[in-house]
């Protein structure tokens, strides 16, 4: 009895505030808009019993989803989100790997401090970290001032409100998510393997490429997913740093909802976004599972 109550409390909470809301999104994405705001048709009339249920299901349709295919905006936004997420994941890997590598090779008494310095940004507001780049990247910003002063450029570069600024923002805010899993993979690496490789005639670079890189692969894969998955649905970075030409689906959904007030279409956008994310999420979980089994 006591066990039942213990299970039931968090279970019911999650059902009511996580699962049911998603079913509502799904239902509204299949509904017609009636008089612009709720109520939506069809309505579920449980008092009518089986007949009510049947008419509820028969009136659901895919109209909102076909609408998504008729307007260029949506599929362009999905594709561009995927592209931006893929490129920024690659850039984050390029920036994060050397840092993780250097941390793992640092003297042991330094490592807790370095680790804390990587984790510290997590406790600082995400919004403020994105905002901090607005003062750096704008036309009169710090970066342009420095470049002008050094004589590298003659006129300010337009970085703010471009997709480049979005890449910088993603790499900056998600860098710790890349560094931490790679660091934990590299930290476990046995140094004698590298010595053995060098004894057997490998150059240091060859030893890195043949030994270190493959052994850190699980960390790299985990880091890439941790950057890629959340970036696809990102809203804050494109709306603060990106311009009108930067299309990302999280921003489109937001505007569809708050500006156009077309809730059925916004729900359909959410459902398709979720379908796109299912593949990387399943791959990520499989990889984690495999890693756990390898360790256990």
């Amino acid at each position, binding site marked *: 009895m006591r*066990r039942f109550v*213990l*299970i039931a*409390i*968090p*279970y019911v*909470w*999650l*059902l009511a*505030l*996580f*699962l049911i*809301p998603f079913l*509502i*999104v799904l239902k509204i994405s299949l509904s017609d808009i009636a008089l612009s705001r*709720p109520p939506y048709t069809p309505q579920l009339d449980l008092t009518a019993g089986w007949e009510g249920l049947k008419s509820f299901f028969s009136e659901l349709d895919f109209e909102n989803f076909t609408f998504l295919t008729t307007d260029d905006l949506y599929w362009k936004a999905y594709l561009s989100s995927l592209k931006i997420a893929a490129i920024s994941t690659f850039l984050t890997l390029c*920036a*994060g790997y*050397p*840092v993780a*590598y*250097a*941390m793992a*090779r*640092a*003297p042991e008494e330094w490592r807790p401090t370095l680790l*804390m*310095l990587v984790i*510290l940004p997590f*406790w*600082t*507001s995400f*919004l*403020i*970290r994105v*905002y*901090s*780049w*607005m*003062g*750096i990247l704008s036309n009169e*910003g*710090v970066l342009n001032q420095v470049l002008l002063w050094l004589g590298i450029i003659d006129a300010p570069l337009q970085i703010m409100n471009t997709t480049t600024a979005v890449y910088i923002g993603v790499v*900056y805010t998600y*860098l*710790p998510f890349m560094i931490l899993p790679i660091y934990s993979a590299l930290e476990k690496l046995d140094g004698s393997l590298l010595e053995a490789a060098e004894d057997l005639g490998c150059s240091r670079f060859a030893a890195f490429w043949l030994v270190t890189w493959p052994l850190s692969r699980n960390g790299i894969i985990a880091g890439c997913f941790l950057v890629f*998955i*959340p970036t696809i*649905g*990102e*809203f804050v970075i494109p709306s*603060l740093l990106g311009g009108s030409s930067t299309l990302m689906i*999280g921003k489109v*959904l937001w505007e569809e909802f708050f500006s156009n007030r077309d809730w059925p279409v*916004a*729900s359909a956008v*959410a459902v398709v*976004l*979720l379908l796109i*994310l299912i593949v990387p999420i399943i791959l990520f979980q499989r990889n984690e599972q495999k890693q756990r089994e390898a360790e256990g």
Partner: protein
Amino acid sequence: MRRFSWFNTVSLTLGFAFLYLPMVLLVFYSFNESRLVTVWAGFSTKWYGELFRDQAFLDAAWVTLKVAVFSSTLATILGTMAAYVLVRAGRFHGRTLFSGMIYAPLVMPEVITGLALLLLFIGINLDRGVFTIVLAHTTFAMCYVSVVVSSRLTTFDKSLEEAALDLGCSPFEAFRLVTLPIIAPAVISGWLLAFTLSLDDLVIASFATGPSATTLPIKIFSAVRLGVSPQINALSTIMIGIVTVGVIIASLLSKRAAVAQRRDEQAAVRAE
């Protein structure tokens, strides 16, 4: 002792400069007399004064703090229960669905979670405000708490709990007297994590709230949408300062605890 090679030194320097320089610049320009970002017009704390005279910011800060305290406390209770269920309750009907619901919010894009919750609140005709933000934050934060706590529970020796039960404790007493003190560090860090997640959240709060309650991130977002604002620089500096002081205190405390533990262990060895 291993030394840093030049390559490692360069990567660490560049990496940490990249991570910290933007925040350092933000703090620096918050003391700028001029409204413009880049023109240094002398040292001034006038933006801090303006911030504290702005009632809208103070109200938003108060709402944010209230929401964060309530939702992180609730999330810690629910999340710890959920972790206990996941690790200790064994098989039960709907276990797969349960663990799915724990992990799904961690990877769900915030825009979708926010939209879903808003449609629910409208569907059941709930007035949106502080209460609905608390509900929303508790839901996603409890998942983070349960991940943190369950990783501590899995490494925890179950026989200690069983010993307490054998010695006549009720299951609840065994949990309160044996399990809870041992998992306390994880519970506390779960609470802190939930608290910062709640302080930080813009997207879900924007969907879950109504016109009556504005949180600090919503206020910041609407203030900076069109460009840099010196008042927000001042506010950011205060927030960065609080986090830095908090982390330094936490690390000093944990260092002291580690030293004390080592001393106890040495004393125990000597006593033998």
